[in-house]
């Protein structure tokens, strides 16, 4: 398995190298949305005498920069491509190889993140300096950030695949995908840090999986939570990851069965 991964990495990096300019531009544009929210919240904080809840303008800067990194490191875009793979029959050769089709996209996903991280960090450093971002991160936070980001990436990846698997039953799944993205946008901490949402939405956000994909690692990276709260939130990530993994197994099996009964 490790050797297969290594070979896929080599091939994947070559492939990525051919699209490096496109990739870089895409990454730079991906910064725009969080920065708009950062600018808006910074303006609100300044207007309200320097704070919104516990957040100063500089805290917002720290939060949105951490969030942008987390969004980048957890990105999963499988459903967009998977729909085409199913519709055009490109899934078939993959199903006939002794390697689960998900592995190809794990590798693609990691390659994308690794190759596009440098330009992203450069741009974020500039933004952090412009907004005077404040981080309360301790070395312990950095240590906790590692499992948290890995869990978040795995969770978002597998949840994305659960949505993508709908392509086995429906020709177009963009509506489901958009619904997933919009819900995540509200409850994952993009529109505002979860701790600033109205209480009812806050409760909902902690119960749903989306916050564990973005908000939790972002807050740990920013140093916005204590170590014990961080551990509790990581526990939540583990639970959601296990549940999503189990769900995907069921959905995938049923999906492949449908695929191979309707004409792969």
């Amino acid at each position, binding site marked *: 398995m490790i*050797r*297969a991964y*290594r070979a896929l990495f080599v091939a994947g990096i070559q492939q990525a190298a051919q699209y490096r300019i496109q990739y870089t531009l895409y990454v730079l544009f991906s910064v725009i949305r969080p920065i708009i929210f950062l600018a808006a919240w910074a303006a609100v904080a300044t207007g309200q005498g320097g704070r919104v809840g516990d957040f100063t303008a500089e805290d917002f800067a720290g939060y949105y920069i951490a969030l942008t990194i987390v969004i980048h490191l957890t990105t999963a875009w499988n459903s967009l491509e998977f729909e085409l793979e199913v519709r055009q029959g490109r899934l078939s*050769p993959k199903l*006939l*190889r*002794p390697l689960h089709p998900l592995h190809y996209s794990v590798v693609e996903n990691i390659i994308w993140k690794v190759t596009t991280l440098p330009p992203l960090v450069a741009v974020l450093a500039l933004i952090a300096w412009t907004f005077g971002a404040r981080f309360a991160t301790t070395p312990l936070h950095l240590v906790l950030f590692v499992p948290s980001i890995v869990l978040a990436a795995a969770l978002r990846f597998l949840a994305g695949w659960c949505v993508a698997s709908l392509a086995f039953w429906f020709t177009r799944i963009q509506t489901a995908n958009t619904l997933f993205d919009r819900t995540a946008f509200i409850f994952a901490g993009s529109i505002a840090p979860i701790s600033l949402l109205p209480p009812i939405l806050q409760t909902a956000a902690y119960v749903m999986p989306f916050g564990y994909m973005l908000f939790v690692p972002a807050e740990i990276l920013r140093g916005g939570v204590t170590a014990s709260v961080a551990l509790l939130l990581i526990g939540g990530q583990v639970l959601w990851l296990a549940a999503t993994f189990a769900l995907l197994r069921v959905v995938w099996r049923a999906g492949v*069965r449908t695929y191979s009964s309707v*004409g792969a």
Partner: protein
Amino acid sequence: MPPVVVVRDLAKTYRVSERQEGLGATLRSIFDRTYRDVPAVAGISFEIEAGEVVGFLGPNGAGKTTTLKMLSGLLHPTAGAARVLGHVPWERAHAYLRLMTLLMGNRTQLVWDIPAADSLRVLQEIYRIDDVTYRRVLSDLVELLELGPLLHKPVRQLSLGERMKVEFAAGLIHSPAVAFLDEPTIGLDVTMQVRIRQFIREHNRRSGATILLTSHYMDDIVALCKRVLVIHHGRLLYDGGLADLAERMAPHKLIAATLHDSAAGTDLSRYGTIVGNEAGRVTLRVSRAEAPEVTARLVHDLGEGLADLSLQDPPIEEVIDRVFSGEALPT
């Protein structure tokens, strides 16, 4: 040795939604879909022994590709059973996938943006082929397919024929014991078709792989397969030697009589239907049963006027064409 492929009453029915054209029908179909069952394969049985190259013949929609997809494991059948190398194909056990390949002439499994050599490396690791075996198999494939200059170009820069050769290499790099080839020469020019045929024959000879192939080109089948399966409307019409196919399926034979100048112009229409007449060579179509007697009469009646006489089966394309158009049925 038990047969490599065992198929028993295998059937596949697709369920397709259908509606009439027009706005009204479209709106109705949103709430009330009607489905129709389309039998693609309607219960076929056959066996293939190790090392055989078997041709699968049938017009479009006969059920050839559906059968290959079931045997390779892509499709679940609606009914019946199949075992390939002892495995139930659609369980797609990794142990089975390592032993077989499905090559479809109109589908690609290579990554377009990178050279084939890198795709092959990936396959080496996916199939866990050790380095020594990999190098040996690859050098065989490079030699047989003349791949040398093609391996290091990005796949998207290859011509259709070149790409097909590389697809073959990708499909066979793990030395599968069973290969299902679906239209492997489709869209290729004549020279490339010949090359691919030679390759398949040589590969079968060297590796002893069992091959089931479909093709629209009779030349492929004639060149490669001693045995053919003829399928039409999802049913198996014939399973046997290619040579016997004409005998079973064609109700007539062709007699070609070449006449000396002395007998030129003799009317031969009383012996059979004249289907060709050029430069003193007359071709007659006669019923299979009457052929020996008509031949004897021709020899007797024309005597010295006859320069040459031969009794032939009609061209295999014609036989197949008649079967598929419903003119001839198996006897």
